[in-house]
């Protein structure tokens, strides 16, 4: 069969369009869906670290003496977030008529396999190389909110308006301190990003604020977690001793936030089915 010029051009046009669309989406990345070029926050990174948080539900009293729990308040103040953006929210859980009330703090679970990063159309939600933190690139996010739909823990917040506290953020904060979650504008998602204070040798705002030392933070690879009192525990021992659980294990997200059950007799799965 003779291929004439018109057929050839036609084929080229179809192939070209297809190649353009697939190339831009599939092959523009070096490996995997995450594009590591031009990523922000790169100076704030410790390769080889794997940050984890341990939350002792037995020690958390929900700060019922205050309107806003200390951890939540420290987070809001520290990150200049709008008052209704609770990156760390404390829930009062009363699972059934036989169970006691438990206070359940919820930060971003920093999943090993984060659904938000899978669904993000532009990889603005991405899990970075090095310490595998799941972050948000506020300069890339298109504001579609698909990540909010995908997150099983509902920890993501959308800036529907300009951050009312945006003007309060000192300019040097963006440079002098880990700028994760510091945000002035509108139209993008934000969430707890494990603070970033660890890169200047401090515990996250929420961890240092806890008056009961219920929150621990540390590097899994150093096998140590520390709370507000400066108590450092061996990470794996603490988990084993207290029969720690991860929230919604069945989602397969493998969170890096570990909960120590409120009762000493083991995991009652607080929030586990929610």
């Amino acid at each position, binding site marked *: 069969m003779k291929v004439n010029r018109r057929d050839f051009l036609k084929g080229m046009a179809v192939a070209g369009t297809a190649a353009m669309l697939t190339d831009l989406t599939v092959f523009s990345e070096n490996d995997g869906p995450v594009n590591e070029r031009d990523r922000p926050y790169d100076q704030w990174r410790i390769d080889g670290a794997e940050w984890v948080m341990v939350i002792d539900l037995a020690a958390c009293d929900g700060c019922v003496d205050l309107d806003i729990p200390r951890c939540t308040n420290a987070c809001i103040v520290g990150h200049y977030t709008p008052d209704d953006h609770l990156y760390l929210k404390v829930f009062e859980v009363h699972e059934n008529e036989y169970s006691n009330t438990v206070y359940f703090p919820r930060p971003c679970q920093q999943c090993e396999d984060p659904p938000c990063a899978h669904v993000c159309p532009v990889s603005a939600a991405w899990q970075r190389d090095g310490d595998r933190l799941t972050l948000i690139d506020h300069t890339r996010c298109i504001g579609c909110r698909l990540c909010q739909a995908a997150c099983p823990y*509902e920890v993501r917040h959308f800036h529907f308006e300009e951050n009312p506290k945006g003007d309060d953020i000192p300019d040097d904060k963006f440079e002098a301190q880990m700028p994760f979650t510091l945000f002035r504008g509108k139209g993008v998602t934000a969430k707890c990003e494990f603070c970033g204070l660890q890169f200047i040798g401090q515990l996250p705002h929420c961890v240092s604020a806890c008056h009961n030392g219920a929150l621990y933070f540390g590097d899994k690879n150093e096998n140590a977690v520390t709370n507000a009192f400066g108590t450092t525990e061996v990470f794996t021992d603490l988990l084993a001793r207290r029969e720690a659980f991860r929230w919604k294990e069945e989602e397969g997200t493998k969170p890096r936030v570990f909960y120590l059950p409120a009762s000493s007799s083991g995991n009652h799965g607080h929030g586990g089915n929610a």
Partner: protein
Amino acid sequence: MATVDAGDLLGRDIVENSMLKTSWKWYATFLSMLGLFVIGIYNYYLQLKFGLGVTNLDNKVFWGLYITNFVFFIGISHAGTLISAILRVTGAQWRTPITRLAEEITVLALIFGAASVFIDMGHLDRVMNIVTSGNIDSPLVWDAISISFYFMGSILFFYLPLIPDLAYYRDNLPKRYWFRRFWYKILAMGYKDDEEQLHILEKNITKMSFLIIPIAVSVHTVVSFIMSMTWRVGWNSTLFGPYFVVGAIFSGLATLMMALILFTYGYKLDYYITREHFVSLSKLLLTFTIFYVYFTLAEYLTGGYKSEVHETELLHALFYGQYAAMFWYFIFGGMIFPIIILVFVIYDKKLSDRMVKVLIFIASAMINVGMWLKRYLITVPTLARPVFHEGWNDYFPNKVEWWILVGQFAGFIMLFMLLSKMFPIISVWEVEMEEEMH
């Protein structure tokens, strides 16, 4: 033969009238649509300036009216494909006078469907990020690819069967329509009405028909994937792909019916579009209504029977709770009553032609309202249901969202009216060929 010729002339006159003669009613409708459209644009401007905070969306119900519109408009875009492509492929000859309108609906509905997503986005200025740093894992990127292909395909599918009509009017319009003739000349691409060109054209229209069906199916499948690829109760369903596709064709057909009746009334197209067409389309619409009843039953029965706690919460809100009025309208107003009306229209031969149209219009409008509500009921209650020990969220769209919705529908009607002035609304050459064959 003489009578056929006379009828033929009459036919051409009707189409020419619809294109070239514009009544004051047309202008009045057009201007009022334009006015509503401008109000919609103004409200979008407010949203652009102050952020999505001007809507009632919040961090629990972060998708609302706009995503409902997205699914709705992409849904009715399936009208064109079904009528044109499927009926073409299956050789249903009665489709010829209907195809042009159906294809126009597809193109316009896709524009407003895509616009709904753009309206919903927090950063429209970054939309090109989807191309420059797109993540192929994301269902939204699948949407972008699928809808782009569908948009290009449906423009082509609209354009190809238009060529012989453009060529005819390029050659046969009086000189004073030089402006139209100028454009028709460009768009007709030197088409000559001879055997060879006609053969090539028809071959390519057939190819496009086969090509566009799978693309259309993929479009509404991946639209559903935006929701069903998440774990959320009410969305976490394997049924969603086919459910959405059937729903799309269903509401697309209903929209086509409404457009057909309005245009038949406005442009006096009764010569072309007869009771036979309406009854045939009613049979098709009835079939898809029944399909949709079946899918709906499968969806809610499998969810409800197991009585899983969270599923039950959601179903209770739909069946007896805050969404019950919408839900039961959707069941009865959107499916059961239209079925009764359509059966009546199909089987009662004593009905007058006018009555047939009125009844079909009512049934189609009820279906469209029901299907819009159904999309709302898919989007909102799932998000309003508390995920973790917080109460139900009571999202209801506010003024800005409603005005943008009105603006979108007004824009849709407006562009549809414009298109009907730019191009013949009946594929005249196909109807003529059809008549010659009989």
